[in-house]
């Protein structure tokens, strides 16, 4: 036995040293594991099934891409490189399911939630999260009720429909210069469309436009022939739309096919004004305008992300970059808080001055959970491309208004 040890050149002392080394290594290994920072769990709650499943999936895409990017860049450095870990939830467009996801994720130990696309789900889910004092970042959900209930845990980077309407009306007034006198508003009959339409109807007179008719429609609606006939009869100068994707595109196509001539089609939070619509229906969308969340076209970061998203076969829709931005805001707050502890994280979010690279936003400043720096863009479809026409400092083209008549 000893001979064989000698023959391999291993002395008793060396064996002892090796054993010590092995023991030290074994003991050290858990220490190394222990030194690895604990992952920070982020609950993503979106409607990835149901009638707005596409939008929810786009939200999820943006959020998970941001998490991947943050982790690749070394995680949260002030927390020892802690990685972000996404917990994926499906609200199924139902309030009670959204709340159930909040409860489930709370038990999984989430540091913060991001969601919910639909305002009713967001209202109930943020309320449920408030019980645990867990920060809830609204990536998409337009209702201003979400940030008007005094909940300290709710933060929304993007502007709500109040701000979008104000900026949209101002942009329309600047373009119209008194030429347009009447409008018809078409909106989906849920919280988002009704709220936006109500605000629009109240503010249009400020720029000399009278809302002649307000047409509400169901979700989903599969035929807009009657709405088009009503619009033709009312003969407005402007058609304003505020609805979800499918209905937006269908209404636009119906008006185009029926050759309804107006000075402009101007939407506020038009759910369908995106690359898919503009590229696939270039003739229908030509000259249509929308006030909506939009990325900063002059941002290299935004352009690079757009290329990546498109290379992966997806569209760079507003859900993608708003969710990406929400995750980036959270990461920034974690970095500054140096902890995922809820009070510290909430305080870090409340005092955030995060610079949203992707968005045409000013410095972040939360007042009652609403970011005051968030502004919408005014876009126009021109030759199969979406161009930003306002605000001027981010614009990529000059608006065409009034639109040439359809023959």
């Amino acid at each position, binding site marked *: 036995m000893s001979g064989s040890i000698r023959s391999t050149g291993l002395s008793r002392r060396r064996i002892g040293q090796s054993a010590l080394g092995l023991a030290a290594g074994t003991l050290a290994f858990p220490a190394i594991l222990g030194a690895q920072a604990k992952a920070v769990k982020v609950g993503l709650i979106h409607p990835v099934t149901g009638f707005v499943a596409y939008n929810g999936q786009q939200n999820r895409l943006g959020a998970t891409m941001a998490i991947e990017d943050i982790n690749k860049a070394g995680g949260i450095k002030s927390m020892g490189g802690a990685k972000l870990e996404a917990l*994926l939830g499906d609200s199924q467009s139902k309030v*009670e399911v959204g709340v159930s996801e909040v409860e489930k994720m709370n038990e999984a130990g989430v540091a913060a939630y991001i969601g919910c696309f639909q305002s009713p789900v967001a209202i109930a889910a943020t309320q449920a999260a408030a019980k645990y004092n867990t920060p809830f970042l609204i990536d998409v959900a337009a209702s201003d009720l979400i940030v008007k209930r005094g909940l300290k845990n709710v933060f929304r980077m993007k502007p709500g429909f109040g701000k979008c309407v104000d900026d949209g009306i101002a942009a329309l007034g600047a373009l119209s210069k008194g030429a347009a006198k009447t409008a018809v508003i078409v909106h989906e009959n849920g919280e988002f469309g*009704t709220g936006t339409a109500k605000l629009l109807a109240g503010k249009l007179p400020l720029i000399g436009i009278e809302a002649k008719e307000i047409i509400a429609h169901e979700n989903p609606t599969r035929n807009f022939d009657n709405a088009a006939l009503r619009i033709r009869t009312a003969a407005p100068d402007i058609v304003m739309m505020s609805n979800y994707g499918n209905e937006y595109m269908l209404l636009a196509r119906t008006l185009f096919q029926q050759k309804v001539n107006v000075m402009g089609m101007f939407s506020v939070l038009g759910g369908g004004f995106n690359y898919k619509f503009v590229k696939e229906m270039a003739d229908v969308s030509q000259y249509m305008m929308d006030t909506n969340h939009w990325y900063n076209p002059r941002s290299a970061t935004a352009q690079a992300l757009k290329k990546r998203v498109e290379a992966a076969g997806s569209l760079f829709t507003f859900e993608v970059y708003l969710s990406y931005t929400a995750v980036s805001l959270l990461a920034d707050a974690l970095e500054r808080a140096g902890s995922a502890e809820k009070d510290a994280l909430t305080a870090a979010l409340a005092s955030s001055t995060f610079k949203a690279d992707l968005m045409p936003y000013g410095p972040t400043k939360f007042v009652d959970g609403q970011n005051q720096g968030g502004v919408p863009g005014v876009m126009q479809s021109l030759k199969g491309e979406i161009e930003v026409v306002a605000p001027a400092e981010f614009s990529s083209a000059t608006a065409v208004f009034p639109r040439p008549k359809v023959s």
Partner: protein
Amino acid sequence: MRSRFGLLCAAGLVAALVYPLLFGGPVALLWRSNYAVNTGFLILFVAFIGQSWNIAGGFAGQTSFGHVVFFGTGAYVSTILHVTYGWNPWLAWPLAAAAGALVGWMIAVLSFRAGLKGSYFALITLAFAEVFRILANSVPITRGGLGMLIKADPRPENFQFRDAISFYYLALALCVLSIGIAWWLTRSRFGARLAAIRENEDAAMALGIDVFREKVRVLALSGAMCAAGGTVYAQKYLYIDPVIAFGVDKSVEMLLVSMVGGAGTIFGPLVGAGVLHIVGEVTRDLGNLVPGVKNAQPLALIVYGAILILIVRYLPDGLTSMFVRRGRAPRNG
């Protein structure tokens, strides 16, 4: 047999009473889990509103596709009284139930006077629910599509609870009450008349049963129960809009839990709600577990649908029929 059934019921009730204490309360006996308590709440709550459907659709054979009309009525009546007129929601609750009964009475009178029955009645209830949804979207008192927000003020006297366990016990009480009503229907003359109407309306009439009156009464009772559920929902989630209150998915849910559990049985809605809810929760999580597929959650609905098809295919009389066929549970169990 009867005593064994009673023993089973008592054991089930004790289990239901103890369940939330395992996961909540002052000392959680297993571990603290509001999710588990909340899931229990949802099962009992859906069982309750499912039972309201079952009383009309299962016991009396008056199948409705638009039971949500009562649910929404209850939710809106109590919320309007509370938010707009400052009523205490506990006081508004019985009024909401009364409004549900009134709507049930109105729909029944209009439909049955016109001689609607079977699928025609089912469709007219769907139409009523849609009319109510459009009304809720249009009239100012409901704030239309903007919906109604109830101010969060979690105090029991305000019908709001800080802990999930209180809502659980409220739902349990309602569920037990609804089971009691269903049990009473299996033993009362009123229930016997409903069964006769369900089996053969003409024969029931020939026996001297006032079919019209009994059908109106059962729909009013069912409407009151469902409306009471609407108030609970509004107070739990603190926000309603026309789609939440009158959306067709709630009607489908009520109908589904009763059909899957066993329409016209005492425990059908509870069994159906339990099974469907647990299957729903599990399949929703399965979506997260499929390796290599990023957006697997939609697959969960396919699994859910497949399970439903299997239940309907192999147990057309509902899950409770498993026990009846084996002769291990009494009739209507």
